[in-house]
């Protein structure tokens, strides 16, 4: 992870261009410093001498694509990460959600599903699960499969359980999984009402009539233009007075669409969609 020369910047541009033209995965407007780090990691671990060599292989061998995507997209998350966020959803957003006869929730950039299961458990605890339809989307097909499988290492469960309790959980996390050979297998009923879907915030269109969109630690990876596109999608996907939850270090302060939202729980980055 060393070597920095302008030639590498050119290689990154070309590789991202190749990835877009050949496979329609568009990372060109991702924040560059993180992309450079991830590509360098991929190059080393996939055994290429240069990014150009990796690009050549990528163009001619589609089997390399999913392996590279795992480096470019995989997010590490945990269940109930930032418990204060989930507590705010529970205490301040849920009372509003309870006024709707049916609900739609979109977890945008769901990665391996930790946040999806957190929200499913929270809404079940609050008696809303049965009237909710969840959309869990990601651009990485491998991540979607992992999310749909709902199996996590038992090593992580202690942390997940602590987070769940701090978030004001009304039940025990162990009610929702069974231990099996060092793995925690989450209850299939938690995903009965989930639609898993391949969706890109860069290139794809809106979802309609969402009541809550949770998209955390995704926008920090985008440049300003791409952030504006994604937030525009959220704006157009939400019902009037729908909620948007972002990561703890993300905000709409500088967004082109900031006027369409008001801060609902400022410290937890939960926003309210204003009427048109």
């Amino acid at each position, binding site marked *: *992870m*060393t*070597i*920095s020369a302008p030639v590498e*910047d050119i290689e990154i541009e070309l590789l991202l261009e190749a990835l877009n033209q050949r496979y329609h995965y568009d990372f060109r407007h991702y*924040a*560059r*410093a*993180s992309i*450079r*780090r*991830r590509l360098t990691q991929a190059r080393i671990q996939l055994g290429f001498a240069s990014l150009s060599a990796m690009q050549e292989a990528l163009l001619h061998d589609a089997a390399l694509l999913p392996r590279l995507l795992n480096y470019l997209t995989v*997010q*590490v*998350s945990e269940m109930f990460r930032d418990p204060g966020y989930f507590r705010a959803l529970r205490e301040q957003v849920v009372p509003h959600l309870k006024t709707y006869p049916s609900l739609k929730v979109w977890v945008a950039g769901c990665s391996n599903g930790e946040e999806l299961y957190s929200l499913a458990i929270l809404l079940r605890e609050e008696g809303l699960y049965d009237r909710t339809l969840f959309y869990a989307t990601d651009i990485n097909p491998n991540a979607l499969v992992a999310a749909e499988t709902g199996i996590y290492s038992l090593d992580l469960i202690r942390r997940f359980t602590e987070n769940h309790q701090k978030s004001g959980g009304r039940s025990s996390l162990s009610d929702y999984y069974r231990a099996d050979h060092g793995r925690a297998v989450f209850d299939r009923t938690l995903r009965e009402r989930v639609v898993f879907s391949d969706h890109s915030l860069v290139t794809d269109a809106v979802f309609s009539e969402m009541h809550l969109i949770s998209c955390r*630690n995704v926008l*920090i*990876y985008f440049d*300003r233009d791409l952030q504006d596109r994604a937030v525009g999608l959220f704006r157009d996907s939400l019902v009037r007075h729908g909620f948007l939850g972002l*990561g*703890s*270090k*993300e905000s709409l302060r*500088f967004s082109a669409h900031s006027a369409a939202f008001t801060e609902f729980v400022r410290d937890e980055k939960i926003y309210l969609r204003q009427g048109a």
Partner: protein
Amino acid sequence: MIPGPIRAVVVGASAGAVEALLTILPQLPDGYPAPVLVVVHVPPDRDHALVALMDPRCRVRVKEAEDKELAEPGTVYFAPADYHLLVETEGTLALSSDELVNYSRPAIDVLFESAAHAFGPDLLAIVLTGANEDGAEGLLAVCQAGGTALVQDPASAMAATMPQAALRACPSAQIADMDGIVAALRAAGGAA
């Protein structure tokens, strides 16, 4: 001993960081001509504590780094807990929640490698006290990009492991005690 004007300073510290930074940062003059980007290993739930501690004691501005803000001179930016801090080539800050590096997020290597790329020879990188080996690879990247590498004398560090690892990775780095580090910072900023 520091060649040319610098565009940024990066600092990494772990065990013993608070005392070390309390010695160094308050001695930076108001209007210090470069941004100072700092990664300290802190537990994920101790957000804002370092900024609250340092800001009232410093003449420079001290704040938590925010995603996509321009790194301004005269300002110390701390990486927020549970996020990596990186710097883009145009000098804006970036956060990431990528996997832990050296068991840590934020990680010193992540900041240093991005800063080495962004600033090349116009960078001063400082590895302070710490009980792990984070920062060593990052310091090597700084050296390879022609930046100035400075390591706290292990003998003067509360925890010697991190400076020792940095010196192994980057033998050409300069070694300094606390006074030497302050002097180097002031010299790099154009003040005696």
